[in-house]
């Protein structure tokens, strides 16, 4: 049976991948309750940049430093503020120890207030994805082709296809940097929460409540378990607690391996395109790939 070989140089494959990458964007959201506080994020994600290398032995496509752009990214933090109460101290001590009379506590809010604030972290988290991929060949039986002849399907762009997909062996996601402005944004959380809680009340009331609570900074630091290193805290919250990076890895792996091919070949293939005559379509069978250090070679039986 006659064979056909198509070869794409590494540069040509990079151009194909760049075009493929630029079509990718997706959204993610998740929420969690972590006892004294809750958090939820909503993110839009796209991919940019990256370097593509073809590798022989084993045959694989290596993609490095593919930027994961997380923008927009909104993070909502919900906090249970403890009761803000006065009184409750001992007024008649027991000479033998303890307290004989303790004043009832009078609380300044009807119940423990739950307050939340949303901060915009869009574009402030820099991360990258790298991975190694097999070139997976699969055949796509187009369900829309049913009842059509080969030529009708060709003209209607409803043909079956041989598809080349990037099937990941592994993927790594690295957090490269968190912008310095995140610290300032988190600092604004305190004022946002106080305004949300006591908006409309005079400044001295807000200050008195902050003071009775022992300072909102220490309180919020404790509730959010804000460690010394804010970068680590934020990456743990988004990555470990809310699973943002796991979601990105799983989504990218599924998209590359199962959803969109990086390259597809129509079957039957128009070896002579339509001109004054109808195109010449030749069936393609047994498609296979071979990756060398310099090119991707696609071979198939024809006829």
């Amino acid at each position, binding site marked *: 049976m006659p064979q056909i070989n198509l070869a794409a140089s590494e540069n040509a494959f990079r151009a194909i991948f760049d075009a493929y990458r630029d079509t990718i964007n997706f959204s993610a959201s998740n929420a969690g309750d972590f006892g004294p506080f809750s958090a939820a994020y909503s993110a839009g994600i796209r991919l940019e940049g990256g370097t593509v290398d073809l590798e022989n032995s084993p045959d694989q496509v290596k993609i490095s430093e593919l930027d994961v752009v997380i923008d927009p990214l909104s993070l909502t933090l919900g906090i249970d503020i403890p009761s803000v109460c006065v009184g409750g101290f001992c*007024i008649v001590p027991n000479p033998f120890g303890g307290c004989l009379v303790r004043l*009832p506590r*009078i609380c300044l809010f009807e119940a423990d207030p739950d307050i939340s604030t949303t901060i915009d972290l869009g574009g402030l988290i820099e991360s990258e994805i790298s991975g190694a991929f097999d070139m997976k060949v699969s055949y796509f039986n187009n369900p829309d082709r049913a009842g059509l002849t080969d030529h009708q399907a060709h003209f209607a762009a409803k043909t079956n296809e041989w598809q080349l997909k990037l099937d990941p062996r592994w993927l*790594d996601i690295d957090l490269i940097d968190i912008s310095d402005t995140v610290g300032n944004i988190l600092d604004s959380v305190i004022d946002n929460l106080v305004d949300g809680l006591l908006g409309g009340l005079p400044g001295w009331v807000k200050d*008195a409540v902050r003071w009775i609570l022992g300072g909102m900074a220490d309180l919020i630091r404790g509730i959010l378990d804000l460690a010394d290193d804010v970068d680590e805290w934020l990456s743990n919250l988004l*990555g470990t607690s809310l699973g943002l990076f796991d979601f990105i*890895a799983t989504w990218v792996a599924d998209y590359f391996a199962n959803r969109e091919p990086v390259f597809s070949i129509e079957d039957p293939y128009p070896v002579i395109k339509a001109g004054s005559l109808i195109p010449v379509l030749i069936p393609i069978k047994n498609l296979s790939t071979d990756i060398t250090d310099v090119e991707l070679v696609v071979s198939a039986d024809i006829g």
Partner: protein
Amino acid sequence: MAIKINKTAFSHTSFSNEDLGSLSYIVHQLPKKGYYNGKIYQGKKVIDHFELTCSDEFKTRQVDIDICSFRNTPISEKGKSGFKVGPEGYVVFFNSQGTSGLRVRLDLLEKEKFRNTFDNTKLGKGDLLVFTLLRPGSYRALASNARSGLNLEVQYPTEKLLTRRQDLNKPVEIEVGKKGFNINSAKLLPGQGLLFRFQEPSSVITRLAKPVDEGKFNDKLKLVRKKSKKKPRRQVHWVNPRK
């Protein structure tokens, strides 16, 4: 985000045992064991009454009576409230909602007659009166049995004062004697108790003279950035389970 705020607590600027309002407490030790009839007045009108029994049968040393709760009691429940306390027990009267114009008195049943032993409009020897002043500013306190007064200053809440926050549990104590107050002035933290110990029958009123609005509580998280240069942190290492 609907949070109900105890607005009267923040707006209250006049404190008196005669009109026991928000953030005010009276502590009264019962003079004798026996059966007491308590009456709650709104102005001059009795709106409810309650029973208070002081007996060896009970071990509790303190009973808290929220006088504003009687105002909202359904008619069918009026007069059915009963409180029990052990001998030499203390009654703590307070007004959680700050409803104004409420008065309380206790009458002890002796020889088939009721004898008045307590009236919040005039406190007696041994009674304690506590105010919690939230609003920063200058206050003036006056005792009904003396001409001299007392100047009080509630400091504006700042980060600097946080180191003294534990003093919230230590009220500033003032004695009310024959000649009035034992001191001329005192400084308080916002929310700190102001305790008057009555050595003589009297009444005390404390009013905001001049509020202080200047100041700013400006605590920041002061977050630490530990990075010195870009250092990637591995977040996910995903391996295809089918490979």
